[in-house]
């Protein structure tokens, strides 16, 4: 009886082990997508024209893009860094940005009236907002990033910062590593909060983003909260803007690349709802890539690419069904794709 049981269970366990180890090996060999999918990686140069509309978390453009006003705050991230952007111009003033890297958490300071660095008399009364970090720049210099260690001490930390008032979208860009902001790891459900204000030689003054509600600067009773991990998976979320789609694809279902002057090439017209980088690839029905082209749409509209029915080495492809894969990525790194089939008949 024992022998029989062993034969039954032993065999089944062996099969399961065999299957599991094979699955493990295959998963290990499979090409892996970047953890968390596409993100937006910002080039820190002070020119904010690459930021997507969905990354503007405070829109203060009612002020107009005029000197000594803040027009907007931007936040985005990738797997490694948090990026912050301030759209503004100053002449003879400075700007300060306060960041609470664990909004709702215990760390941070709400009274910076005794701080030894960039003391502009700031006091924060918004619920849960206790800045852990701050950025300061005077009169358009690149500025510096600081960690607020206590209510009286802040220390400089290394983080790329750049200011450019000559660009189309002028302002400052800052990149800070997640492991600098959250040295003990990225907790599930992480939220950050930011507030920015101009300052004169003495205190926060003139303009703020978001604007105060009931009090006057340098007292602050507001902030903007950004949810960086809404799916609670302990990784920065993928970024998304909901209206990014491939609106339509127009292309014939058959073409005949045989140099007879009739339907020798395939015109693929793609309409996309936003500016995007577009990749068009053709695959055999078995999934082997045979051709590829790229294009760029600087604004929403149509892009037409022509395929001559040749492969990478310039040879005409054989008769049969091919799959055209159209893939578009917007400035936020969001990707959309569609497949279409086409038949080559020579």
């Amino acid at each position: 009886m024992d022998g029989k049981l062993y034969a039954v269970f032993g065999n089944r366990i062996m099969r399961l082990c065999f299957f599991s180890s094979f699955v493990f090996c295959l998963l290990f060999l499979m090409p892996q997508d970047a953890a968390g999918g596409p993100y937006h990686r910002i080039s820190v140069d002070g020119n904010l024209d690459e930021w997507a509309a969905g990354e503007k978390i405070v829109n203060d453009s009612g002020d107009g893009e005029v000197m000594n006003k803040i027009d907007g705050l931007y936040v985005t991230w990738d797997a490694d860094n948090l990026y912050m952007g301030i759209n503004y111009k100053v002449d003879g003033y400075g700007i300060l940005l306060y960041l609470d890297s664990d909004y709702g958490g215990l760390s941070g300071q709400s009274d910076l009236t005794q701080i030894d660095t960039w003391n502009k008399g700031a006091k924060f009364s918004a619920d849960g907002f206790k800045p852990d970090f701050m950025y300061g720049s005077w009169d358009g210099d690149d500025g510096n990033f600081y960690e607020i260690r206590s209510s009286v001490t802040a220390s400089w930390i290394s983080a790329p910062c750049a200011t450019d008032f000559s660009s189309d979208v002028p302002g400052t860009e800052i990149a800070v590593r997640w492991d600098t902001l959250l040295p003990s790891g990225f907790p599930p459900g992480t939220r950050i909060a930011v507030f920015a204000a101009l300052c004169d030689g003495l205190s926060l003054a003139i303009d703020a983003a978001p604007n105060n509600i009931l009090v006057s600067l340098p007292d602050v009773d507001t902030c903007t909260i950004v949810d960086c991990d809404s799916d609670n998976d302990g990784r920065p979320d993928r970024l998304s803007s909901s209206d990014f789609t491939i609106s339509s694809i127009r292309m014939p279902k058959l073409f005949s690349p045989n140099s007879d002057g009739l339907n020798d090439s395939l015109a693929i017209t793609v309409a996309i709802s936003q500016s995007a980088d577009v990749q068009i690839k053709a695959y055999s029905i078995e999934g082997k890539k045979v051709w590829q082209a790229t294009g760029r749409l600087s604004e929403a509209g149509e892009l037409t690419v022509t395929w001559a029915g040749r492969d990478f080495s310039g040879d005409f492809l054989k008769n049969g069904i091919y799959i055209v894969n159209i893939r578009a990525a917007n400035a936020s790194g969001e990707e959309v794709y569609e497949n279409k089939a086409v038949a080559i008949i020579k």
Partner: protein
Amino acid sequence: MKDKKQKIKAKQCPKKLEMRYSVFSAVCALFLIFNLSFLISAKAFAAFEMHPASARLPGRGGWSIADDSLSSLDNSALSFDQFNWEAGRVNFYGISELNGGFLSLQIPSENNSINFIYSTLKFSSVYRESIYSFALARPMTKNLNAGLRLNAYQIDITDFEDGIEPRTLYSDYDFALLFKDKYFNFGVSLQSLSSKSVRLKRVEESADAAISYGVMFKPVKGAVFGLDYEPGRPINGGLEVEVADALKCAIGLRQNIFTLGFSLRLPRCRLNFSALLHNDLGETYFISVSGI
């Protein structure tokens, strides 16, 4: 005492003979394969590459040359102990206009096995490929099967410009060998033999002959894994395991595409499902119902 020894020797003799016979079969098969491989080394015709003959095959990586249980377009030397059928459908890469279907019948007779496969690939109303395939498999020795398959191909194209042939018919044949043993099988398939050039409009294309090799291992009862190799193409390989009494799960790599599938035994039939997970193109799903 001497008589007793002679009796024991006589009892062992059939076993020894059987083993020698197996080895002889294997050597013959290998000899044939290596000779034929020098004669054929061209790529297969581009069309008809994704014609399924069973939804179970793609799930485990599409290997089938050395398989001794599933119907396939890849090896005509499969022999069957009992009648079986399978009917299924496939949708390619989520493209609603691009679908395939297949029907397979496996008919055993006293000395031979007959396999009929109808398989089609349809793109909207503009293009359709169909294969009608008849195979005859015959055991040559206890361990070695040989098979011959006749294939008739049909391509229908909508009349979209002058000079297009609305219907093209052609045919070819395959020859295959399958060596079966307790723990492993080995197979070789010579496909598209005697095929002629095919012209759909102006350009003639040759449906080149191809040779494929396959090996299948059966390390424990209920688990098989195997590989198919065709010169110039990526290897197809994978594993199928009976994880429960009524459930088989499969996983594999087909032309560098990750595949998975399952097969569920139901009363009087079996439900088969498999998926090809392409990194860029997305998924291709196969589903079928079979008798066994």
